């Protein structure tokens, strides 16, 4: 058995040619060598330069967020009336704003809000959306109709209309509570995306023979769901989650830009950008740096997510 795949990959047909055929015989050839799907995905991920750039950006941002207190040269909220609108200098590498606050420190601390909201809103949406999607897909019938009607109702809303009204309902505030409100609003808007995604995967997976085999063996429903169905729909979930973080960060920045995100004095990139537009004529850098920070963060997660997608599911490329 084992000789057949080896003779293909090592024979006269080049690997590159085989790959271009697209899926023909390749899975079989792989199965010959014992490499776990995870190891294979990591190997593919490491080959992609853009994905590695994305991973690099994300890692640096996470470190900046964790060590913000150490990295920031000054307090992000302490104002200094004697030093307003300073141009970038050694003392203030990114200058100061209209209250004399150090922009570099504000941007470093802003990383926390951006990442916290981006990651936790997606996780929250995931923890609600995935179980609902699994139950809807697995049990079908009335349960499915009931759950998906509610999801469709949320999806029927233009995403920003819902997020904005939710934020007005929650009344935006500063600090941790304010951040949690934004997280909640973005999570609610994004729950149906995961529910739909998982439901679709479950619908196709539950018809497979190995699930039938599980049933025949008398495996309980929840065990089938979590041990056999869920692992098989992880790939699209992981990809959507990573790309979803990028979207959530943009939504957070947009809400902040509209004045509906975490409130000052808590440093938030979107708010800083908006607040400094009034002074753009003479102090362009004040709006530039928060914008660049948002862009870099979103780019990092997008590159990472793209790389993950290529690594986890080469057919999607």
């Amino acid at each position, binding site marked *: 058995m084992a000789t057949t795949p080896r003779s293909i990959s090592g024979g006269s047909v080049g690997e590159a040619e085989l790959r271009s055929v697209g899926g023909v015989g390749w899975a079989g050839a792989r199965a010959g060598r014992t490499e776990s799907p995870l190891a294979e995905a990591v190997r593919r991920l490491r080959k992609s330069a853009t994905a590695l750039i994305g991973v690099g950006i994300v890692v640096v941002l996470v470190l900046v967020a964790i060590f913000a207190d150490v990295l920031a040269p000054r307090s992000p909220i302490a104002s200094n009336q004697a030093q307003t609108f300073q141009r970038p200098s050694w003392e203030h590498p990114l200058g100061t704003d209209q209250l004399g606050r150090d922009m570099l420190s504000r941007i470093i601390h802003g990383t926390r809000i951006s990442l916290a909201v981006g990651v936790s809103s997606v996780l929250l949406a995931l923890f609600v959306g995935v179980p609902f999607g699994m139950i809807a897909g697995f049990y079908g019938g009335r349960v499915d109709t009931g759950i998906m009607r509610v999801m469709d109702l949320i999806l029927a809303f233009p*995403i920003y209309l819902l997020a904005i009204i939710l934020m007005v309902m929650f009344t935006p505030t500063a600090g941790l509570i304010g951040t949690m409100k934004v997280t909640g609003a973005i999570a609610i808007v994004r729950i149906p995306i995961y529910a739909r995604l998982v439901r679709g995967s479950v619908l196709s997976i539950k018809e497979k023979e190995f699930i039938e085999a599980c049933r025949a063996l008398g495996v309980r429903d929840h065990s089938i769901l979590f041990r056999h169905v869920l692992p098989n729909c992880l790939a699209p979930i992981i990809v959507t989650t990573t790309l979803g973080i990028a979207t959530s960060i943009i939504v957070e920045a*947009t809400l902040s830009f509209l004045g509906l995100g975490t409130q000052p004095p808590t440093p938030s990139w979107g708010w800083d950008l908006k607040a400094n537009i009034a002074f753009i004529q003479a102090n362009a850098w004040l709006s530039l740096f928060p914008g660049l920070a948002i862009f870099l963060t979103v780019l990092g997660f997008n590159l990472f997510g793209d790389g993950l997608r290529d690594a986890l599911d080469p057919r999607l490329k």
Partner: protein
Amino acid sequence: MRTYILRRLLQIIPTVLGITFIVFLMMRSVPGDPVVALLGDAYTEEDAIKARAEYGLNKPIVVQYVIWLGKLVQGDWGASILTGRPVLQDVMIRLPVTLELVVLSMAVALLIAIPAGIIGALRRNTWADYTATTVAMVGVSIPEFFIGVLLLLVFSIGLGGFLPSSGWIYLPGTCPTMVCGSSLWGNATHVLMPAFALGIGRAALLTRLLRASMLEVIRAEYVTTARAKGLAERPVVFKHALKNALIPTVTVMGLQVGFLIGGAIVVETLFAMPGLGTFGIDAIIARDYQQVQGFALITALAFVVINLLVDLTYTFLDPRIRYA
């Protein structure tokens, strides 16, 4: 086909009712009400109760909604509590601004995305492809307001105030009242930056999608057949490949409408345009219930009508798709 369109048009009604009702419920559960803002410093509990009774705000929420709906069917969108102006009139003044912005931004998106997506797919792994994919990756990662700020810096501040940074001049013929100023040149200078700010992100997204689906389609057997029978490259690409590759692209364009509405709010805020976006956000923040309902209604209508148009576009792109 006609029955299909009719059925879809009828389906619009429950969706719009659902959206407006939920917005109605949500707005009324927001702490504070417009009466507080209306009375301002002269606020007394007595006046507030009187004012609430005057605007019918003391009735049960469902009753209030039914009253709103009843007036709506007669063409009365209600009047703003804070300004007293009829909501429909405000919406009509602001609609052309947003409509022009959205249509032009979609035009910008398609004019960039179609050539870039085709070139990326046909010249795969060449420098042209790498440029297109890199620029597209950057494009999907920049929020609209930052593109807007960059445009402002270059064209409003950098090039000696070449383009105005805010305000609006109507396109001749679109001004719904007698008082607004309109000129072709003035309109062009005002709409250019917002349309690009809103369009570039969309262009980047569509480029990525179109390139991916073109890559799939171009390998299909019917494209090989078309080439084998001696067709020139141009009809092969545009008639055979592009039309099919556009189907997933159009789907995503439909899904993007929700984001487009958010984008319009942001861009209109940034460029201080008197469009529906700024109207909506101002109304929501001021808790002007009647205006918010008007905004929710027009947004919901736009949302479902565009989704219907997307479904109808499929029949043009792929005549095998039939609706009965």
